[in-house]
């Protein structure tokens, strides 16, 4: 009978503790759609998001991205204020991909006077290539209401599938 725990099990415990340290830290989760058992040949990820343009009185906040979601909160103070965000999506795997779904959701406590405009991402995304999606959040210039809440939280979810 062994007098000490097996080294392989100890290594696994250390690996789990390492992951747990990160898990207690991160708020948002990556959903890798169950491809973790595949050897990394399929990986289409959101790699970056940035505010590329905004009106002088608007506040683009600090957009963040995980692998499959992009989160941003734009504060617009007057009609015609806008913020434009650019999301970079890259196919880091070895299999060509095609756009499957592209969803934008926003919280219900943002006002309807704030509109979301976007361009579609590329339908095809070959292995190694990247594409960019631009999303503009606009305070309706024709609105006559004076909403109390002028910040809209938006989450973009993009999913690609094998071509």
């Amino acid at each position, binding site marked *: 009978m062994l007098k000490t725990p097996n080294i392989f099990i100890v290594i696994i415990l250390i690996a789990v503790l390492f992951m747990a340290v990160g898990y*207690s830290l*991160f708020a948002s989760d990556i959903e890798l*759609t169950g491809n973790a058992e595949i050897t990394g*040949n399929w990986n289409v990820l959101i*790699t970056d998001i940035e505010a590329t343009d905004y009106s002088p009185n608007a506040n683009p906040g600090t957009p963040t991205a995980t692998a499959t979601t992009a989160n941003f909160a734009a504060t617009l103070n007057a009609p015609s204020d806008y913020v434009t965000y650019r999301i970079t999506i890259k196919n880091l795997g070895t299999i060509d991909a095609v756009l499957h779904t592209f969803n934008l959701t926003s919280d219900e*406590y943002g006002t309807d006077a704030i509109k979301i405009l976007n361009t579609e991402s590329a339908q095809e995304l070959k292995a190694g290539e990247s594409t960019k999606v631009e999303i503009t959040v606009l305070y309706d210039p024709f609105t006559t209401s004076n909403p109390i809440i002028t910040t809209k939280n938006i989450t973009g979810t993009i999913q690609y*599938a094998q071509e």
Partner: protein
Amino acid sequence: MNLKAKDIIYILLVYLLITLLISFQKISIYLPIIFWLSTFIYLKKYFTKYITIKKIPYHFDKAFIISLAFTIIYFLSGFKLGFAPSPFKHNLFSLLKNIGIFLIPSLGLEIARYIFVYYNKNKPLALGLITVIITIIELNFSFIFLAKNILFKIICVQMIPLIIKNILFTYLAKRDEFFLTIILVIMDNITLIFGYFPNLDWFKEGTFLLLKYAFIYLAIRPINVTKSYPLLFLTCLIVLFMIGIFNYKPIAILSNSMSPCFKRSDIVIYKKLPSQDQLEKGTIIVFKKQDTIIIHRIYALNNDYILTKGDNNNQVDNFKITMDDILGIYQFHIKYLGYPSIWLYEYLNS
């Protein structure tokens, strides 16, 4: 002519070169299929000598059942956590293509590993070498260009399980468990044929794989390893606690907004999914706002929304939350236990 161990190394190095060229889109992704089918033909005459499919040992049943059970649990978890569509196409041509892209190279690597280990069973350095080479072959190095926070999750869900898997498979090769290895490779790739995957996050996915390998390993160990089962049981408890099975979850505190109640580097334990009647002014709640988890005290509430404020903040938070945003209620905290998370956070944001 005998096949030498170094011939296997040459084969693997050529295959490593192929995978690197594929990563840079220099060659077709179908080349590995041609490479391994050619290698199989070349190695065929050595099969009977090096590949001994023994009479199935009794512990094979245990290992196979464990692997099958984990696969079933994996898919059943989708009924609790939800399913996500598979990114792979499932018509016959695509299925055959994916089997060729994923399964054939995996089988080829295991055959190469088995033959190499046959020559080097009692040489730890050689066993380490073959494990490292095959791990490098299977890694996807394009991730190193990602942001640190995404890279960390990729490391946890793909790289760490990959390293553990290769250690396990080298051990199986040392134990002449070729048949079991092939079964495990096939079962790892069985997810290619399903249209939906359980929607697991990176932590659940990564730890699930690690626990599967741990249980398989203990099932085939030839001697009593009673000291390891308590340790594995502890590991399972940690995982279950982290994912919230026990209705309580931990979270590391990154700021002093609730000082002196609890401070940066403490670990807060909260109880999940409260009902509205548990909330009142002064209750410390855990809620999600955009991409951030915040732990603040309820300042005011009505039937429509809740206002919150940190004890150490001068002003009420400038947003409203609803019951849908609330993750749980603060229970207690443990001082200083969150320091590893703080250090990790500072490193990832440096």
